[in-house]
């Protein structure tokens, strides 16, 4: 048989199946195994799932992951829209530069970003020194570092470029004349945004939200290194069950429950955004 261009999908698909799907399938299998004398024994036991079902800590942590994913999505969307719309107004030569400026922070190491924020937000960091110098505060603000605020801020920072890119691509496709027509007909800029631009860019917003939600909700390093006492995450617990406690069935069940919950919330969110009239108009045209 002749090798055709489309057959090149095979090695790639094989790599993803072996590297992603097989490990996830193994998680499913392990969640029904039993642990005896520090050894994993094949079985068909619901012990792990039963323990998970009644554990309020586990469900609290899963809810927390959803919440931090959703808040990062909302914050990046609110900040991302003005930036994306401003980008569409740049000249073509400026856009190339803007992409680089936008993407470079994305390329910096996970630990570099975490490290840098710790210096910015610390007791003697930039923000506190500045505010004290201006006489706004007398004592350094404690909540800046090692708090839920820190996690929210850094997750927003980490994911903002993805959201901007997604909305930007969508906004570039909006016919500029539609906005001008709305303005000519007397719409205020706010109305023009909510009734023309926003509906027409919901596909981009949906793509951006899906991305940011998946990345922020699954993040475990930022909370654990910058969240202080509020930094516990479902993934850190999975890591603990996997490494220290050697309870692989429970670790697998918890990881799967997290994954399934995130998947459900993400599809609900994307589905909701794509039900907007404008989104249907855009998607219908393609």
């Amino acid at each position, binding site marked *: 048989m002749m090798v*055709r*261009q*489309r*057959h*090149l*999908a095979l*090695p*790639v698909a094989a*790599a*993803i199946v072996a*590297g*992603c*799907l097989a*490990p*996830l399938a*193994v*998680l499913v299998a*392990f969640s029904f195994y039993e642990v005896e004398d520090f050894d994993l024994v094949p079985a068909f036991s619901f012990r792990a799932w039963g323990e998970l079902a009644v554990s309020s800590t586990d469900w609290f942590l899963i809810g927390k992951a959803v919440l931090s994913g959703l808040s990062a999505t909302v914050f990046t969307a609110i*900040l991302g829209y003005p*930036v994306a719309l*401003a*980008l569409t107004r*740049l000249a073509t030569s400026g856009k190339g530069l803007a992409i680089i*400026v*936008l*993407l*470079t*922070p994305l*390329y*910096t*190491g*996970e*630990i*570099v970003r975490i*490290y*840098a924020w*710790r*210096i*910015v937000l*610390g007791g*003697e*960091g*930039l923000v506190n*020194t500045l505010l004290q110098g201006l006489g706004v505060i007398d004592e350094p603000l404690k909540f800046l570092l090692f708090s839920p605020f820190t996690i929210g801020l850094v997750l927003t*920072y980490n994911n*903002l*470029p993805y959201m901007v890119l997604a909305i930007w691509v969508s906004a570039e496709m909006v016919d500029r004349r539609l906005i001008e027509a709305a303005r000519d007909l007397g719409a205020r800029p706010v109305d023009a945004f909510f009734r023309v631009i926003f509906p027409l860019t919901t596909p981009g917003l949906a793509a951006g939200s899906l*991305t940011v939600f*998946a990345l922020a909700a*699954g*993040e475990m390093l930022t909370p654990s*290194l910058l969240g202080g006492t509020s930094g516990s995450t479902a*993934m850190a617990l*999975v*890591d603990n069950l*996997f490494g220290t406690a050697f309870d*692989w069935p429970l*670790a697998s069940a918890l*990881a799967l429950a*997290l994954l399934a919950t995130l998947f459900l919330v993400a599809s609900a969110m994307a589905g909701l955004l794509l039900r907007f009239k404008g989104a249907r108009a855009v998607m219908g045209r393609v």
Partner: protein
Amino acid sequence: MRRASLCVLIVAAAFLYLPLVVLTAFSFNDSALMAFPLSGFTFEWYRELAQNDNFLKGFVTSFLISQPVGILAMLFGLMASLALTAPGFRWRGLFAVLLLIPFLVPKSVLSIAQAMIMSRIGFERGATALILAQSLVALPFATALISAVMVRLDPRLIEAARDLGASPWQAFLRVLLPQIRPALSGAYSVGVILSLADLTIAMFLAGRTQPLSLMVASEFRRELRPDLNAMQVVVLVLTAVLVGLSEAYRRRRLHKLAANA
């Protein structure tokens, strides 16, 4: 209106670069304490860094791991893009969804699952495991970069080459490859950069291998040290150089293509 957009962009850039600028400032700050106001200029921390053999070793390790990741991401991204743009590929939608999986499944979940399967089948965690896992995570990015360029190419060029008697391989080498070379270099850089940036996968799969990010993370839990700042800046500059080089290459190719056209 123009001015308002410009202001928004400047504020956004300031937010994105603020932590990096502060980091850089402290790496040259003449004090062991990371506190404002800055107390003077020094190269002391960079000198200390250059004498730290551990960091140098970690640096070499990270670099050696990032190279195969870049190459694998580029090759597999190219194959995936060729398949995605192939005429008459019935499973295109399903294949595209498959390509999104390494991007959408959180890296932490994926790495733990991979660590479990590896220890069951006796595949030792270490550099090889790390390279394979990082390549997989880079694959969606590489594919997006390459296929974004490929869908915009004129398919008639390839058809013309084939009609004139070129074999598929010749048509690929002589017609397609010159046009997508900038995208390929972009895919390679993304692989390298994501590998250098990664900490999550390394935490689960590095085994006894000690890439730089892992060393910094363990130091981070103890204390902040000025020479760590200096090291972060070095990593940052190298990443920026890489981005700059690949962008310059892309532009030069585009100019050449435009000149030839």
